[in-house]
């Protein structure tokens, strides 16, 4: 995924934001929480309600919001690798099958961990959109894998400061280094020697001169990841610092 298309996604983001604002105004207008809940239930069955997007997922606020954000990204990665291994590209070498299967299992472990840890606070399962990926083509699959892994690293690095619990921060730390291991491996499969090409990661917030990996705030990550997620994600209540 190139950074340019990510920037262009901002147009879509804006309209999403608009919808959310409209939704909030609408809820304020209806007055009571009870009626809001009723409406929420009622609208949950409708597709494409004009200013009450039934498919929207709200990540929530505080540490749980940040964990839901991570859960959303892990859902995306897990779904991707499940598809990769369900329909492997032609002549996938044994070593690549071994690595990609392992990565799939790690991402599923991350996804299910967040789901379990969040319990009733967890967002629902997201609907993904991989129409831009050609799963029969090695370059397309590995290119997408690289994009997901590098983005995942930048996402966790950027989200660390949003957490207030040191326990959650440690969990994020335990996961991000595994994502970085994935990222380096996938990069090596594409271009040997590119495992930590930090100059190429500058659009994700990396600093090559200081040898710092990417770090992005949720809104920037979701603008990029949005290409692959059909479900509308509302991250407006996430902490920003």
């Amino acid at each position, binding site marked *: 995924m190139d950074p340019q298309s990510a920037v262009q996604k901002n147009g879509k983001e804006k309209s999403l934001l608009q919808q959310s604002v409209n939704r909030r105004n609408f809820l304020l207008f209806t007055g009571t929480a009870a009626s809001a809940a009723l409406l929420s239930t009622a609208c949950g069955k409708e597709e494409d309600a004009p200013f009450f997007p039934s498919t929207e997922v709200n990540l929530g606020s505080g540490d749980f919001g940040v964990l839901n954000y991570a859960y959303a990204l892990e859902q995306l990665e897990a779904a991707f690798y499940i598809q990769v291994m369900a329909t492997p590209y032609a002549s996938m070498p044994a070593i690549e099958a071994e690595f990609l299967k392992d990565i799939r299992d*790690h991402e599923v472990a991350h996804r299910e961990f967040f789901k379990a840890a969040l319990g009733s606070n967890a967002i629902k399962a997201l609907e993904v959109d991989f129409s831009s990926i050609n799963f029969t083509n090695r370059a397309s699959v590995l290119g997408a894998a690289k994009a997901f892994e590098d983005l995942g690293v930048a996402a966790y690095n950027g989200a660390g400061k949003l957490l207030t619990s040191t326990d959650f921060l440690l969990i994020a730390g335990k996961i991000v280094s595994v994502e970085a291991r994935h990222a380096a491996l996938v990069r090596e499969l594409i271009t040997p020697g590119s495992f930590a090409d930090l100059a190429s990661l500058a659009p994700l917030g990396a600093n090559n001169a200081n040898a710092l990996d990417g770090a992005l705030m949720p809104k920037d990550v979701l603008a990029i990841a949005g290409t692959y997620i059909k479900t509308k994600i509302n991250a407006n209540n996430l902490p920003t610092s």
Partner: protein
Amino acid sequence: MNLKNILTEIEQVDPEVYDRLDTRRNAMQRFATIGKVLATAAVPFAMGSMFKKAYGQTPADVLDVLQFALTLEYLESEFYKQAVSSAAAASASAADRAALTVIRDHENAHVVFLRAAITASGGTPVTFTAANFDFSGGSAAGGTPGAGPFASAFTAYPVLLAVAQTFEDTGVRAYKGQAGRLVNNNDVLTAALQIHAVEARHASKVRLMRRMLTGNLVPAGTTLQPWITLNQSGIDTGNAGANAAIQKSYNGEEVVLQAGVPITNIGGTAIPISAAEASEAFDEPLTKAQILDIVDPFIR
């Protein structure tokens, strides 16, 4: 927590904080300008400078983490400096030498970055030179300096890579273990996480290089991967002392319970997650004391 909140909180216990910095408006404006002008990476210095100006110090805990990190980066930086020009590396492929050079440059950049961050925060960065390190691993109490179990690190390429892998995996665990102490300092925390991820990329690459190497010192029956399986080092140097020293960097990696959630088979029967994979999916921290014990043989 953002800077404004920090200042507001400080203001409650120290109403004169803004006088110490400047006027409130100027302090805010100055920081806003600094934030815009400087690269993200330089913000820790700006933060450090503000605290230094106000109180003459950055919280001791944060400085301690930075000094600890700097020590480890010096260790790695000096190791790769010698490694790249060693007889061992001369026997490696050009691609491998290029990778070692990339890693060396990163570790050196981390040294420079951390020194600047410490200085900006009002501390005096520790300084190490090549003479301070003993990459034979013979400088622990009772050891023989210069003639430790890794004495062939710069003459035998498989040993060089085994030490490199251990240092990288250890570095990842070291940063992870310090993150909690930085929870109230957003900028330093973010920079530390950014370094942490780069170390993990290095670890992944070195592991891949070992996987592909003939005579790689990977124990028979072990499949070395870019991630850490259980508490396996994936290294058998043939020297019990060296193996024992290395093992310290992998003990505790076998955890399969995260925040009370059992990870093994958490995906159900559709995608069975083995204990090995459950352990791989999460890297584990080490405490500062554990790390210092691990690097002790390498520091004279």
